[in-house]
């Protein structure tokens, strides 16, 4: 084993979640690569999980089989050593003298004797039995840096919580909590930093690793912001079109039927855009068991026809009015400038008042798709009309859409890779209020300006870098626990 690469063996009793800790730390949710199941003994051999950046290995975790017979192993080691406290030499003899009767213990001790640090995973909800004390003792004899990881399965405290902490505190350099089934990025980073505290020998490379992990996360956040920009541009500019013969267009029932059919198509295409957006986000955050949809054709996206969606997500009426007034006023300023001041500020006033009033009266309304009938279309059967539908008239639409994406972004980040259940990113439930209401006003104004260009079908590329910065900041806020 190379001494240049800091190595940590993840050890513990069987079924304590060692593999889940590795899976969450390394973001591996593929059971073919890291096997996790409620039945004990899934890990039978040591498996190396290197942390590699640009082809260089910076850190190495070793998933080990759990202790199967720790008390017997402890006695065997003591017997080999005789009086006093055994050390690495006695452990080496134990490895050499014993066969498959202590197969698991031998396999988990081998990397420790090669210089790996100890990540001892325990569930503090379990009673502290002698088996655990024997494990701690054996690990202490290795003389390697030791970090105890409390991987709690059950939220209710166990009977020996305090004793666990006392014993672990006495035997290990550091004790940290890490829920492998719920840990988010910041907790993963905290655990990596804890390694830095116990492993002085490799401080520079560990610091470098942490920097690389942070940079990698920042990069993913930036890619996520770009995915959001793509989605918002496409979704806000989405329009569906159909043609109707002139004689059919005169009949209200047929016109309505056509419009209804087209509205359905609009929402389907919008849902498809959302699905693609989430597929890309899931790819960025390396999720394979979390799905954007159960089946492609069933994905329905944000329920824009639910009143709850429009009341809980997006901006409040007052915020919408203010944002609209500001952007309308800004357009009016341009008009006033272009008249050389001859309009005496009328453009600014009319722009602000008109946009603000429209937002006040229309902002809270349920989706009512913009509809545009255009005549003079030549069809094979004669004259016809074209009907274009979308996007919804409500000025809250972009904000509702953005909140919907941000809430599911939060769900993606909340999912730990140590879980092995399949889950569908649900768009149906409206669990809580969105994020956009808490945006600072300058961010709201900037986004509103950009949304308007997208809704007009001509996204302003000169605003894109600022919008990107605003969305990166928004995503960083969403990531906070």
């Amino acid at each position, binding site marked *: 084993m190379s001494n240049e690469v800091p190595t940590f063996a993840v050890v513990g009793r069987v079924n304590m979640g060692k593999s889940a800790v590795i899976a969450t730390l*390394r973001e*591996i949710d593929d059971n*073919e*690569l*890291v*096997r996790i199941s409620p*039945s*004990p*003994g*899934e*890990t*039978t*051999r040591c*498996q*190396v*999980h*290197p*942390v*590699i*950046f*640009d*082809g*260089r290995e910076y850190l190495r975790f070793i998933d080990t*089989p759990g202790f199967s017979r720790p008390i017997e192993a402890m006695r065997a080691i003591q017997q080999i050593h005789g009086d006093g406290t055994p050390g690495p030499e006695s452990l080496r003899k134990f490895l050499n003298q014993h066969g498959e009767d202590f*197969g*698991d213990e031998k396999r988990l001790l081998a990397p420790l004797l090669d210089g790996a640090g100890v990540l001892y995973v325990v569930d503090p909800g379990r009673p502290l039995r002698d088996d655990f004390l024997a494990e701690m003792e054996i690990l202490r004899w290795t003389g390697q840096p030791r970090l105890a990881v409390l991987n709690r399965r059950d939220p209710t405290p166990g009977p020996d919580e305090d004793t666990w902490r006392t014993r672990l505190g006495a035997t290990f350099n550091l004790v940290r909590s890490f829920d492998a089934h719920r840990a988010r990025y910041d907790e993963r980073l905290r655990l990596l930093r804890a390694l830095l505290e116990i492993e002085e020998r490799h401080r520079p490379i560990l610091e470098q690793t942490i920097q*690389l992990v942070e*940079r*990698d996360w920042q*990069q993913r956040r*930036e*890619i996520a912001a*770009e995915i959001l920009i793509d989605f918002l541009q496409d979704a806000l500019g989405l329009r569906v079109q159909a043609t109707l013969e002139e004689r059919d267009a005169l009949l209200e029932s047929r016109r309505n039927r056509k419009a209804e059919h087209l509205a359905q198509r609009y929402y389907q295409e919008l849902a498809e855009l959302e699905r693609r957006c989430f597929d890309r986000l899931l790819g960025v955050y*390396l999720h394979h068991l979390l799905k954007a949809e159960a089946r492609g054709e069933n994905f329905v996206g944000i329920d824009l026809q639910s009143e709850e969606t429009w009341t809980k997500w997006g901006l409040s009426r007052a915020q919408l009015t203010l944002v609209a007034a500001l952007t309308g006023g800004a357009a009016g300023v*341009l008009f006033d*400038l*272009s008249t*050389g001041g001859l309009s005496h500020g009328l453009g600014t006033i009319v722009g602000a008042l008109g946009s603000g009033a429209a937002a006040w009266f229309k902002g809270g309304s349920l989706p009512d798709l913009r509809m545009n009938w255009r005549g003079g279309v030549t069809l094979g059967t004669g004259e016809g009309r074209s009907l274009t539908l979308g996007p919804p008239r409500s000025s809250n639409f972009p904000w509702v859409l953005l909140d919907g994406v941000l809430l599911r972004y939060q769900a993606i980040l909340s999912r730990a890779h140590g879980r092995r259940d399949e889950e569908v990113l649900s768009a149906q439930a409206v669990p809580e209020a969105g994020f956009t209401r808490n945006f600072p006003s300058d961010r709201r104004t900037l986004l509103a300006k950009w949304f308007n260009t997208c809704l007009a079908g001509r996204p*302003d*590329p*000169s605003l*894109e*870098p600022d919008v*990107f*910065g605003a969305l990166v900041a928004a995503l960083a806020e969403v990531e906070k626990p």
Partner: protein
Amino acid sequence: MQTPWKLADVIDLEALIAREAGAGPGLKDAGGFQSAIQSAGSDPSAVRRAGLRFWLGERRNEIADLPGARWEGARLLVVMLLCTVLFLAGTSVVFGLLDRARGGFNVPVFLAITLGVQWLILLAAAATWLLRGRLGAGLALIPKAIGALIDRFVGERRPDWWRAMLAEGGRYRAVLFWPLARVTQAGGMAFNAGLLAGLIGCLWFLNVGFFWESTTPAWMQQRLSNVTTFMAAPWSWAEPSWHPTAEQIAATRIGPAPLDEVLRRADAWYPFLLASITFWGFLPRLALWLAAARAGRCALAGLDFQARRHRELWRSLTNAQPAQTASHPADGVVVLDVGGSGLPIDALRPFLLRRLRVHPVAWLTVAVMDAGSEAQAAEALASAPAGVVFLAEGWALSPPRMQSLHARARSAAGPDTPLLFLVANVSPDATPVPPTAEEQAIWTRFVDELADPAAEVFFFSPLEPSQD
């Protein structure tokens, strides 16, 4: 101190990004890149500019045919041609304004044509600038026209870098606009120099005079007096003689005095006209040229390279790419159900995991009617580093068949791969039960006779509750 960006650098960068679709090849000198960005300080914009500058330098060493230098060359050529043409135009205007019949210049007409038209153009340009938001579609013709020029001089059809910079708007458009403004102002300076040269030439080589005429002489005289006073304001405090007095203005009107006498009294006009062209024609152009140069430098210095294509490139240069674990656990085995016992995988998996310490990655049937599954079994061996488990019923040992299966597995898996025999019987409710003692003895003897050190036999037994 960082080297400032020039337009040719930006063009080359954009052309490289367009050519290499964003990411581009990696850095040759990663250490040099790191020191370049570290020396740029802590401002992220400065760091990015320094890093991209370094990358551009590296790429330029490898790719010769970048358009930046050609663009600069074309711009200089355009400047020279334009200046030459406009200088000649200036002198031509002066000669055109010379009233040969009378042998002099009509002063108001001279001022209106030489300076008035220029100022009208400047005012129109200023109005267009102010109204640029409203004239978007019309103004788009300008970049289209420049695009056609680029096609002509740079030799590329619709270059992607040009479209990318124009589409970006804001500072990127400004980076292209200000050099264009500089070109036009240089042309303006050349035109005014031409006017001066033409006028001086007329004064030196011809016998010319200056006059004015009007149907409403009193009104015109007053206006002329006002205009000359206003125009001479920049220099009259220093050189009052370069400002025609009211008497001189009155004396140069054609009508009361004979033409010859008028032309002889015109000495006060030519210093005024030379100064007017200098102060109201040449110097404003020079000031605008300097302002455009400064604005161009500011626009270049203000480029933050935050457009998506720049971000992608920057990420590819700065971010170490993480690699995902691709190694599978080393305990995978192929379970070959010999003869098709039908025992379910779930019933035997815990035993395999905890007693044999192997993990079944494939569960196939051999020695059955379906020949396809045997082929599958052979393929699956490749993904089973921990070996092969032959699952057989205790009563069903057929030594020739098992020997044949063992030999095939051994030859496919290599000499050291473990080959394990798991023997179990099937109860009426289709659950595994241990083989009888006699069956165990027969199987043990059979495996011993194989004389294979990597072969071992296991007999199923229910797991103890603590192990389950």
